[in-house]
């Protein structure tokens, strides 16, 4: 089966510019996660969708970050305006929620954002 797809893989922008990332989860996966991973740190959850509804966005800086998941499939994460501290890898992951303990999260390759 195809994995989680993300694009672009790399992006360089100047501060105060805007940027958008795209994610296509594994087919049939109800839950989609966006993580921010700053160099040398573990992934930090930004937002979690179940189908097209937001489950948790408590750590999303809502003054500059937004995310949507139209039709419960693809998702986009936007930053506007970007700050230097937004330089990080943005990881998308998806999971099939079966209600059992066999649920597993699969990750895309990530988008490396550099803000100059």
């Amino acid at each position, binding site marked *: 089966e195809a994995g*989680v797809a993300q694009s672009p893989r790399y992006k360089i922008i100047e501060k105060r510019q805007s940027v958008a990332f795209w994610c296509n989860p594994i087919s049939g996966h109800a*839950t989609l*996660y966006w993580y921010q991973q700053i160099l040398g*740190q*573990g*992934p930090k*959850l930004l937002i*979690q969708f*179940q189908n097209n509804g937001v*489950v*948790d966005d408590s750590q999303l800086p809502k003054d500059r970050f937004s995310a949507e998941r139209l039709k419960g499939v693809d998702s986009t994460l936007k930053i506007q305006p970007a700050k230097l501290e937004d330089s990080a890898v943005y*990881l998308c*992951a998806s*999971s099939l*929620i079966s*209600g*059992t*303990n*066999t*649920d*597993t*999260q*699969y*990750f*895309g*390759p*990530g988008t*490396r954002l550099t803000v100059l």
Partner: protein
Amino acid sequence: AQSVTQLDSHVSVSEGTPVLLRCNYSSSYSPSLFWYVQHPNKGLQLLLKYTSAATLVKGINGFEAEFKKSETSFHLTKPSAHMSDAAEYFCVVYDSGTYKYIFGTGTRLKVLA
């Protein structure tokens, strides 16, 4: 609340020697536990997972982990390190109530020639 603690931020081993990456968890019920590996400039790849079946779990690339309830541990091991094992390793616990995956802080494995 569920949590994981990775006891070592950095581990160095010589090629061909055993690898031990330590992880302790905290959970109020039987947890689902995972180990992920992240090579430089790559996404996270699932190594193995424990879901209350066998306590000794075998994963990819010769890695395995043993779930020990009495010690609340889920340590990752490999009998013989290879240069390609150099990467960051994350221990993760799944909270089935919130569908969240709780990450440890990571262990960076260095393999010396």
